[in-house]
């Protein structure tokens, strides 16, 4: 079975909510829409206090090419446009809406009938990309990179295939898994749309073989889509990394930055993104909700919720049995790459793939011990870097040497910290070094 070549680790899977059906979460009383739900320029608010909005009303327009608009996922009244705590644990501009009823914009098609690309010859590449851009779709795996940017290859590059990331290699998370089980046809149509948008005839869906039911189901349904192949992959973290997935599925290696996947002819999109694209293009539905896994060993009822964006995390936890008494940490995202949250008032955003509650016993990090030069981190690094060296260089502020050792190639997957027997804070330091070095490179380029 295929997988990527370099490094990787195998954390305990703990997919507690696997197989639990998608539940619709209740509407929040107040929804908060951050203008920073994507990588790139923030959205610019276009509503003001007192405005009435419906589900699907534009709240913030894209602030540039690498940006995405934000739509209201609820109907009601805008109470303020002010800073709000978001999942980055800082306060940034957001629109507050007090919910009143559930009225949708008339342009959105709320029927569940399957629309096939084959029945819509009028949809050409540019129309599809425009609709995706307009709907504010971003990478739903968690990176939140605006989707339309990836579908417009830079000059001199050509897409050869589309790879769909249905790996969901993060432990605990099952949002993509449940989506595949419930909406296989919509996902396949979404893949067709992406393929049409970038004008390729080959599509792959990479799924790890710890989800045999999803592999079986999608393979069955893909029979009517001869250009799409479902590729079962061996379970290994971080297979959901773009570069690792390309290596696993088509065996090509993406060179070091500034090279991006398109340089080896691959366009990678998350399976959740494919579904959102289907809804945006075929149903004219902007990105207003997503599937989120609320899970944890002490959570009474780990579930996959379909929740409106802007819903506070507190409410999602309440729907799954409330916050356990022994909560140690609350993580936005998965345990490997997610970020600990400092408050439950934080609203969910386009990139919220999971909400993980870790108990006190497991939350505590062991104290860091001296490096014993075992090189486990080097073996584990999927990018072929030397994490122990990069971490030391960063902690000593030796940015130049860190740059020479390719610190910017780091994908921040955390395999090094996971595997370190001395519990060293490898990723903390490497992340500091990567950010600083990227800042240095940017200022050098600006000169």
């Amino acid at each position, binding site marked *: 079975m295929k997988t990527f070549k370099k490094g990787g680790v195998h954390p305990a899977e703990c997919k507690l909510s696997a197989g639990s059906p998608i539940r619709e979460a209740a509407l929040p009383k107040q929804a908060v829409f951050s203008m920073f739900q994507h990588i790139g320029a923030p959205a610019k608010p276009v509503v003001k206090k007192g405005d009435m909005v419906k589900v699907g009303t534009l709240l913030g327009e894209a602030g540039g090419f690498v940006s995405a608009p934000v739509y209201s996922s609820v109907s009601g009244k805008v109470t303020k446009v002010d*800073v709000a705590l978001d999942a980055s644990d800082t306060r940034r501009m957001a629109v507050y809406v007090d919910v009143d009823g559930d009225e949708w914009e008339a342009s959105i098609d709320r029927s569940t009938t399957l629309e096939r690309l084959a029945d819509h010859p009028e949809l050409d590449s540019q129309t599809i990309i425009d609709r995706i851009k307009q709907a504010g779709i971003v990478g739903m795996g968690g990176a939140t990179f605006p989707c339309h940017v990836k579908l417009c290859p830079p000059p001199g590059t050509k897409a050869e295939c589309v790879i769909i990331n249905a790996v969901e290699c993060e432990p605990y998370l099952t949002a993509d898994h449940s989506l595949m089980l419930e909406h296989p046809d919509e996902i396949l149509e979404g893949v067709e749309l992406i393929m049409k948008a970038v004008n390729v005839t080959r599509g792959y869906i990479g799924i790890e073989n710890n989800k045999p039911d999803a592999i079986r189901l999608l393979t069955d349904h893909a029979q009517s889509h001869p250009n799409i192949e479902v590729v079962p992959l061996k379970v290994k973290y971080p297979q959901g990394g773009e570069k690792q997935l390309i290596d696993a599925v088509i065996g090509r290696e993406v060179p070091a930055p500034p090279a991006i996947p398109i340089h080896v002819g691959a366009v990678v999109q998350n399976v959740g993104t494919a579904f959102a694209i289907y809804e945006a293009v075929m149903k004219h539905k902007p990105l207003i909700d997503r599937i989120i896994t609320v899970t944890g060993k002490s959570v009474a009822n780990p579930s996959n919720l379909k929740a409106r964006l802007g819903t506070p995390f507190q409410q999602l936890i309440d729907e799954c049995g409330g916050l356990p008494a022994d909560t140690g940490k609350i993580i936005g995202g998965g345990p490997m790459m997610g970020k*600990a949250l400092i408050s439950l008032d934080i609203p969910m955003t386009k990139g919220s793939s999971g909400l993980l509650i870790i108990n006190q016993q497991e939350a505590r990090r062991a104290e860091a011990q001296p490096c014993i030069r075992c090189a486990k981190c080097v073996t584990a690094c999927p990018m072929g870097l030397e994490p122990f060296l990069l971490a030391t260089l960063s902690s000593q502020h030796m940015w130049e040497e860190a740059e020479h050792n390719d610190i910017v190639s780091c994908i921040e997957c955390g395999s090094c910290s996971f595997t370190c027997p001395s519990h060293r804070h490898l990723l903390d*330091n490497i*992340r500091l070094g990567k950010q600083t070095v990227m800042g240095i490179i940017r200022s050098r380029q600006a000169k």
Partner: protein
Amino acid sequence: MNVILIAVIVLGGVGLVSALVLYLASQKFAVYEDPRIAQVAEVLPQANCGGCGYPGCSGFAGACVKAADGGSIDGLLCPVGGQAVMEQVAGILGMQASAAAPKVAVVRCTGTCDARPHGVEFDGAHSCRIQNMTGMGETQCLYGCLGEGDCSHACLFGAIKVNPETRIAEVDETKCTGCGACAKACPRGIIELRPVGPKGRRVVVLCNNKDKGALAVKECKHSCIGCGKCVKTCEKFEAITLDANLAHIDPDKCKMCRKCEDACPRGAIHAFNFPPRKPKTVAPVNGLQTTDNGQQAAAPKSEV
């Protein structure tokens, strides 16, 4: 016998030739260094802290000599040695040292544990820079001291330490040389270099919070809310300016009247090294108290 003789002659010859080559090379490629640079470097503290803006003490010595050749050493200051050392340097170079105000580092945060509760705990690498990357940090204030001690690691003189009780960095004024290494190390830019002031007295706004009033009130009991009361009390001297919801006292204009300290409803303004006041009113003496009065004064701004 013969063998020994040959060996001595050959080795001696090689030695002589090499010595000649080295002598010629040292004459040919000699680099002239102004002897004054070494003399100046000798009187410098040799802390190599970089507080002067030059790479180490010898770099500063070179800069002094170069400036002296240019006619004046004004603007050059060794913050560690201060005026005394600069006068010695000026003596060597036959110049006049200009009067320079010595500086001291001031940590502009009084968000102690009770004023600014640590709602969450950061258990990653112990570094302010790394904690700052995670966003807010342990408290609700995005601008306050993180307390991991990047400044104390950067200080070569042991002058700044994080107080484990308040979890805020504190400066030991007797040790601080004003080199500014801590100010550069602080990821939140809390530490400011200020003139020591007459008899070490100075009045400073000890807050770095740039949030709007209503938010700043929630974040910390001692936060500056940008109400502008201090600006009004100081209308005569115009020493206080308000920028991004944060007051700042210009040390050159401050007349040390301490009226702003009394006026501040939040206790964010502190007066250093003043003799204790005679008890006459209920005005907050150490400024660390927040009166009920202060809360009311803050109320009008909470409608944002």
